[in-house]
């Protein structure tokens, strides 16, 4: 058994140290957790995401106190009780709604930063994979949450997305009914998506966030030049007071001070949206109560799902479903599809540079087309963009294996 000083006052520094090793924890987790110095504000997106998740969690807890997971009451519990009877209920709801949309903007920025700087390679594969797992979990969380107000878009999006599981020509209608708990979205459906949204998925998200942080520890955070250096050596230099010469900074307080500044700017943007521009995150169609006899003229997902929706849409049912399934998982394969040994910004990687921008622009085009009605020229553009997306992923291993070593 360890030695405990009997004279140490309860909860004094020494007392805590003997029981919880607080000094060691602090050192390992913050003051001597080394981050490269050669970074820009995009490196703060992780903390911005953590903060946004926190905001979603807190606002969600407040909403949970008044929300009614009942097909008869859900709509009015959100739109009447929370919006007009609960003090500042409208604020929590708008924060939650805007947060759910903005969190995906930051996730995409975070992802494309990783792709641009090659931060998924050479020992950093698990960072990428756990991050992609978080993307999938956040998608599930967003979708399940979208069901809860039980408006027209909740109902019909629920109908369309669960229908995908019938697998086209496979006609797995039994599976669809099993997922819904009914022939059409109803009480059983709402209840289980409520459970997923407030318990199972958030629990999984918290777990994978811890894993995501854990995967960073050994390979360390990448830097703006993809430079490999000895972190121990740089850390020694820093500790010796040569902060200018050292290539690292401690997580706390140096890296954190920049994160907090970026968060400050971010929250100005965030609350500007919450107070003055929340409509983009709250589709008007969803302010009509769910009605199984009235299909809305246009059914479309929230903006962050549009690109993959558009990969589903331009093809025939079976081909579309296969393309859609591939699009959902293709990003997981990035560390293995990229055959180049170089960890460097895309701008220095020859053909990959064009691949990166082509992918980004193609996904934006897909996003635009995913919302537009699939008619005339829009269908053609959507089809070309979907084929381009597939083509880009086929090209990736070819162009990267030909890449010259830097």
């Amino acid at each position, binding site marked *: 058994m360890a030695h405990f000083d009997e004279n140490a006052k309860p909860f004094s520094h020494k007392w805590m140290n003997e029981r919880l090793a607080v000094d060691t924890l602090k050192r390992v987790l913050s003051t001597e957790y080394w981050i490269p110095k050669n970074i*820009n504000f995009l490196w703060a997106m992780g903390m911005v995401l953590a903060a946004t998740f926190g905001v979603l969690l807190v606002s969600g807890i407040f909403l949970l106190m008044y929300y009614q997971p009942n097909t008869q009451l859900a709509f009015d519990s959100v739109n009447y009780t929370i919006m007009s009877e609960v003090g500042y209920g409208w604020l929590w709801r708008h924060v939650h709604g805007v947060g759910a949309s903005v969190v995906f903007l930051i996730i995409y920025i975070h992802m494309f930063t990783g792709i641009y700087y090659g931060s998924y390679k050479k020992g950093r594969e698990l960072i990428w994979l756990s991050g992609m797992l978080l993307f999938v979990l956040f998608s599930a969380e967003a979708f399940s949450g979208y069901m809860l107000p039980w408006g027209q878009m909740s109902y019909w999006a629920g109908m369309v997305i669960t229908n995908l599981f019938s697998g086209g020509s496979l006609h797995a209608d039994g599976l669809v009914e099993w997922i819904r708990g009914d022939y059409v979205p109803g009480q059983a459906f709402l209840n289980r998506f409520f459970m997923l949204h407030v318990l199972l998925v958030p629990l999984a998200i918290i777990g994978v966030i811890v894993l995501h942080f854990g995967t960073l520890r050994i390979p360390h955070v990448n830097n703006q030049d993809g430079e490999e250096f000895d972190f121990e050596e740089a850390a020694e230099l820093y500790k010796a007071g040569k902060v200018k010469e050292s290539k690292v900074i401690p997580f706390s307080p140096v890296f954190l001070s920049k994160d907090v500044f970026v968060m400050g700017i971010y929250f*100005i943007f965030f609350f500007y949206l919450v107070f003055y521009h929340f409509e983009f995150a709250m589709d008007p169609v969803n302010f009509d109560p769910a009605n199984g006899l009235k299909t809305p003229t246009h059914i479309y997902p929230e903006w962050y799902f549009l690109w993959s929706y558009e990969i589903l849409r331009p093809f025939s049912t079976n081909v579309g479903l296969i393309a859609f399934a591939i699009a959902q998982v293709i990003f997981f394969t990035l560390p293995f599809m990229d055959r180049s040994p170089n960890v460097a910004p895309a701008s220095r990687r020859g053909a990959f540079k064009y691949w990166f921008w082509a992918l980004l622009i193609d996904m934006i085009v897909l996003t635009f087309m995913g919302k537009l009605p699939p008619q005339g020229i829009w269908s053609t553009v959507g089809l070309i963009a979907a084929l381009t997306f597939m083509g880009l992923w086929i090209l990736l291993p070819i162009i990267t294996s030909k890449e010259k070593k830097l």
Partner: protein
Amino acid sequence: MKELKIFGIVAIFTLVLYWGVEPFAHSQMHKHVEGHGLVYDGKADIEETVKDKKAMKTAFWADVKKIAALKGDPVAGEATYAMCAGCHMEGAANMGGVTPPSLEHAGAIYDKNFLIALIKDPAIATNVDHKYPNGTIAHPMGSVTTMVTTPQDIANVVAYLKAKKAGEVTPKEAYTEACGRCHANRYGHLTQLGEIPKTKSNIKTGQDIDALKYKEKVATEQAALADYLGTLPPDLSIMIRARSEHFLHTFIENPQSTLPGTAMPRTGLNKEGMEKVFAYLEKTGDPSKPLREETGPKVLIFFLIFAFLAFLWKKSMWKGHH
């Protein structure tokens, strides 16, 4: 500076993305309908109508213009109005599917030309004549065409409405008179029969018999409405958030131009009437607006100060690092 350049690229892509999924997508998804500035001269009706009705409608609205030029006599109008008051009264019963509205503020909230047209021929004025292939007489207000017939009589009644039924009107009154007989507003505690009465439940049984009786009355009224209109008109509690302001404005002005074939009649609201109705829709559909506008600047100022202090902290922490 490199970091600002990166920020600029991120910002540009974000804005392009926003433009594509919001303003651009919505401009492509919905037919754009021009409003006509609450002028009721039948221009849109004549354009939209079937070929063999064009001449009839042109003549109708030309007559309306002529009547509008006549000088109405409110005193004579009051005598004629007695015929109107037989149906348009407090506690009126449902007539052919719909309950006649109160006209207490008709002079204030409805347009003069529209009122003239309405008395002359309610089906054509409200632009739902396609619903009455057997003529306006089948319209619940069709009998007016046999009661107030001469141009001077019409001018007199309208002059009376404009003089005596034009007092100060609250948003709720304007909404109830113009929309409330067909559209419930549950967040405003309104049914098609008006304000939901306060009732008490029996303490021993826990049942509220008066409330149940009222519910039955509402259900009967709604069934009559649904039979007449083909569908139960939607509850308007949060319609202000379900449709854009432009959509609501042009739709109320002339429902047929936005939703051809709809059973919804034109209501003929003037500027004041429209403003009052919107004020009420906003009150039930977006009640947090005043507090939101009050809280917004405070929160933004907090984060401006927060960001500034964080910047100073960052600067002091990174001192000597470069």
